[in-house]
């Protein structure tokens, strides 16, 4: 039996077409899942396959699209039956291949849904192990509309068999998957994961796929699959017909074959007739596999950043070196601090974010994995995973949604052995440092030799130079004034060798005063030599000035648009109205003016001690707005804005307070109970309590009773707040209260949520019922009196 990958190299292969449409014409009842016929009507499934083989197709898909272990207890029986039907249809035909059809789980993965990434991998893996066991020629992962689920499916396949892997995703008319990924980001991720062919299926007819195909042709180095629908369904004379008939369909497929699509087939609405006409029209079209592409790409779950076209900024602020606040946040597992750093750097204009959480006191692998996951919920920027710990890199690369920038590898043999296999398995663009066992070489030529060594080793793993970005290292001129020139010469040389470059620009001035003056000029010089990526602080104004000015001067900013926008926003930020500086802190908090809380707070701290500011300014302001809220004169959004302003003031005041005075004894544990994922009310209560100076331990949502109880006891809290929005989850509240009473009768419980009232609260044994956020604050104050 020929190998399918060899066959693809020789000639164009054709997938079959729609399954549901054809089976319904054969009597499949409306509403019945097609996979059930694998056991109920195997003869018809075989007949379906034969009809497509007779039409001329070379690859038939097993009738397994909708099967998984969560949907069907007898999933093994269904899968085996599906493969048996396919084998029966292909008996005697060594020119027809069987692709195992792996469809979506039907669930969204976290953070958007509830399915854990590893659980999704295992769910797919169960199917793949059976596909391997019962024997197919390839795996087709299809109709995936989420990049993360696609990655889970590819990893499951790669980790459980050696079969060729094909992937087709569902794109909408805007050229994106439902969860936002465009074609270039999918190509970047999937090629990094090592798939053998990729493309699109379903949702669109061939007419709407043409534009998207252009992107595949421009960026894909592996064969391109196109399996469109037969257009859109419509009702004509009481019957359902698809808007594109077989003739028109095949005309479009001819166009696509000439554009560069490699494998052709159909999806919903297509029949053997569509495939037959397509084959007839395209069989004589010249067949060429895609050329190897040389673009250097990193991607997130929405888009890719191409390195080498225009300089790229990598935000460096999530790195604990020299940053006490970040170190503290990491030790306290305060993810909120990191997330705010991520968002603010994105708003400052970087295109990639560096994530480094290396601290000796913490579990770096767990922290980097968690940080990457959480940061990807607040920003769609591609990330640079930055660690010297291969285990940390591996943990983060595995769960990263996209193709990451991996910082880093160097010329040391051990490092190459540790890092290159990770990039091979998970994909990634690698930062290669010009260091080896002898240290950092003094000359550009010596650094270039290390680059050659790294590139050679990478090639042995199948990693091309396009996936290597070289960092020639900027050593400080305070130790040797030649250092800047050596780095600049190295950048030039590395560019001539055909690699992209990256640099931690500000390292050049370490140990000197007036660092920004040196950094900004060095940055301009490096850009002129061809620097592609700068790891830098986007809040360093002179560096940003250089970045935007350089781009416009080197004709990389069409119509000067970016520069104009930057210059205009720069002007707005530097103008502070006198009025804004005149308001008292009390006024600013009452009015919820979080953005101008800094000046009045600092002014007060010049003449008053921190506790006085809290007791005489902040708390009275909150009480004023709180009382207005209780009387119906102010509304919830205003209350929240005041609470945010108060919390911002607290952050400034805390820095001035001696540690032993910061009162962390007033603490509350909050949780949405097991089975309930609503948390907006709980989050509002959290904001209010924090603004009043309480320490809040927010356990999140869908929290098991024992977790809440154990945490409250561990943290020595006197008060637990439970939230539930659904009547079905109130029993979980009761269970939690019951468990708490058994273990510690002194801990008080307040409950809240749309389904609750005083009566319910009494019934389930709660101490307090909080109908709104202010009530929760009053209750908490009472408990801690």
């Amino acid at each position, binding site marked *: 039996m020929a190998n399918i990958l060899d066959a693809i190299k020789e000639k164009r292969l054709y997938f079959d077409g729609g399954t549901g449409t054809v089976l319904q014409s054969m009597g499949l009842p*409306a*509403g019945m899942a097609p996979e059930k016929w694998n056991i109920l009507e195997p003869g018809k499934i075989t007949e379906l396959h034969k009809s497509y083989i007779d039409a001329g197709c070379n690859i038939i898909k097993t009738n397994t699209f909708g099967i998984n272990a969560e949907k069907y207890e007898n999933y093994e029986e269904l899968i085996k039956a599906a493969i048996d039907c396919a084998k029966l249809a292909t008996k005697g035909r060594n020119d027809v291949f069987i692709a195992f059809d792996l469809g*979506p789980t*039907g*669930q*969204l993965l976290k*953070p*958007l*849904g*509830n399915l854990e990434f590893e659980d999704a991998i295992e769910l797919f893996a169960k199917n793949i192990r059976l596909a391997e066991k019962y024997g197919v020629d390839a795996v087709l992962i299809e*109709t995936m*509309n*989420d990049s993360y689920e696609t990655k889970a499916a590819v990893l499951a396949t790669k980790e459980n068999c050696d079969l060729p892997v094909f992937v087709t995703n*569902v794109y909408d008319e*805007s050229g994106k998957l*439902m*969860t*936002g990924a465009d074609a270039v980001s999918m190509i970047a991720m999937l090629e990094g994961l090592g798939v053998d062919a990729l493309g699109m299926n*379903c*949702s669109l007819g061939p007419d709407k796929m043409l534009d998207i195909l252009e992107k595949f042709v421009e960026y894909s180095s592996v064969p391109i699959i196109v399996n469109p629908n037969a257009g859109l*369904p*419509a*009702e004509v004379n009481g019957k*359902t017909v698809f808007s594109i008939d077989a003739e028109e369909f095949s005309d479009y497929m001819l166009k696509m074959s000439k554009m560069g699509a490699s494998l052709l087939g159909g999806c919903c609405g297509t029949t053997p007739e569509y495939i037959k006409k397509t084959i007839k029209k395209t069989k004589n079209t010249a067949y060429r596999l895609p050329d190897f592409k040389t673009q250097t790409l990193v991607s997130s779950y929405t888009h890719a950043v191409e390195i080498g076209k225009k300089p790229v900024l990598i935000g460096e602020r999530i790195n604990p070196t020299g940053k006490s606040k970040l170190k503290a946040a990491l030790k306290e597992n305060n*993810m*909120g601090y990191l*997330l*705010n750093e991520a*968002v603010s750097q994105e708003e400052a204009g970087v295109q990639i974010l560096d994530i480094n959480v290396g601290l000796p006191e913490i579990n770096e692998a767990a922290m980097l994995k968690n940080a990457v996951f*959480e940061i990807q*919920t*607040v*920003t*769609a920027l591609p990330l640079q995973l930055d660690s010297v710990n291969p285990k940390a890199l591996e943990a983060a690369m595995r769960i990263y949604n996209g193709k990451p920038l991996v910082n880093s590898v160097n010329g040391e043999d051990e490092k190459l052995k540790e890092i290159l296999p990770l990039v091979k398995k998970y994909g990634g663009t690698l930062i290669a440092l010009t260091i080896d066992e002898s240290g950092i070489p003094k000359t550009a030529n010596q650094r270039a030799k290390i680059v050659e060594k790294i590139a050679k080793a990478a090639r042995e793993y199948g990693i091309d130079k396009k996936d290597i970005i070289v960092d020639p290292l900027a050593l400080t001129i305070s130790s040797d004034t030649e250092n800047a020139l050596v780095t600049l010469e190295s950048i030039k040389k590395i560019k001539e060798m055909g690699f992209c470059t990256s640099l931690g620009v500000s390292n050049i001035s370490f140990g000197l005063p007036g660092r920004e003056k040196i950094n900004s000029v060095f940055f301009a010089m490096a850009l002129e030599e061809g620097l592609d990526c700068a790891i830098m602080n986007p809040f360093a104004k002179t560096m940003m000035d250089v970045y935007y000015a350089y781009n416009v001067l080197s004709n990389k900013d069409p119509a000067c648009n970016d520069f104009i926008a930057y210059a205009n926003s720069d002007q707005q930020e530097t103008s502070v109205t006198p009025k804004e500086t005149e308001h008292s802190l009390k006024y600013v908090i009452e009015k*919820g003016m979080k953005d101008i809380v800094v000046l009045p707070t600092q002014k007060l701290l010049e003449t008053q001690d921190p506790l006085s500011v809290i007791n005489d300014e902040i708390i009275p302001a909150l009480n004023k707005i709180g009382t207005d809220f209780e009387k119906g004169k102010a*509304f*919830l*959004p*205003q209350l*929240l*804005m005041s*609470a*945010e302003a108060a919390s911002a003031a607290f952050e400034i005041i805390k820095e001035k307070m001696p540690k032993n005075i910061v009162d962390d004894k007033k603490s509350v544990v909050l949780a949405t109970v097991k*089975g*309930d*994922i609503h948390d*907006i009310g709980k*989050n*509002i209560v*959290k*904001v209010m309590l924090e603004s009043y100076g309480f320490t809040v331990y927010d356990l999140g949502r*869908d929290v098991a009773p024992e977790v809440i109880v154990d945490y409250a006891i561990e943290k020595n809290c006197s008060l637990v707040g439970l939230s539930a929005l*659904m009547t079905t989850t109130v029993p979980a509240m009761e269970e939690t209260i019951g468990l708490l009473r058994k273990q510690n009768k002194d801990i008080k419980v307040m409950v809240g949520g749309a389904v609750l009232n005083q009566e319910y609260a009494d019934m389930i044994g709660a101490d307090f019922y909080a109908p709104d956020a202010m009530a929760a604050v009053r209750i908490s104050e009472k408990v801690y009196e």
Partner: protein
Amino acid sequence: MTFNYGTIPTNEILINPYERAKRLQVASNFNMDEFDKCFEKLKVVVDCKYLGVKVPVKRLGGSSLDCGFGEFESEKLLKNLKDCNEAFVFCVTLGIGVDRLLNKLKTISPVEYFITDSLSSALAEGAMDKAEKIIKGETLTRPRFSPGFGDFGIELQPRILELLNAPRLLGMTVNKSYLMLPMKSVTAVMGII
């Protein structure tokens, strides 16, 4: 079965001011600059799609009925569908971009999160109004009735989405708590008079 589906441009969705005020928990004539700022950010990420089918209504005795997604019991829906032999079953979603925005705001700004969540819920209802008009055209209908109203259980959401082929056509799913994803999605049954 014919699926009627398409996109609703955001600027064609009208938000009912009372619905908006209810969600924001403010008086109906109350407004703040922040509401407009949050709405501007929300609009950018909305990708509103609708999907509907026409089904026969089968009364199976007692309070049991079948509206194309299998037998279930609901006295309230049965009453709502009085004298209706057919119904539209339809849904809208504002898309996953809204979920992403809300996830982000939850972390960085509870105020913006609350305002945006409220506005997007009101927008989803406005989208249902628009989808209803598109799907029914000139046909006279009963008021639409959604899972969660009365005894029309939310546990029926998976079956409704399967009937609509919503997972495949719109990427909509239902989690184990029967909450739809993307979060700002609504389904309904609307009896044809």
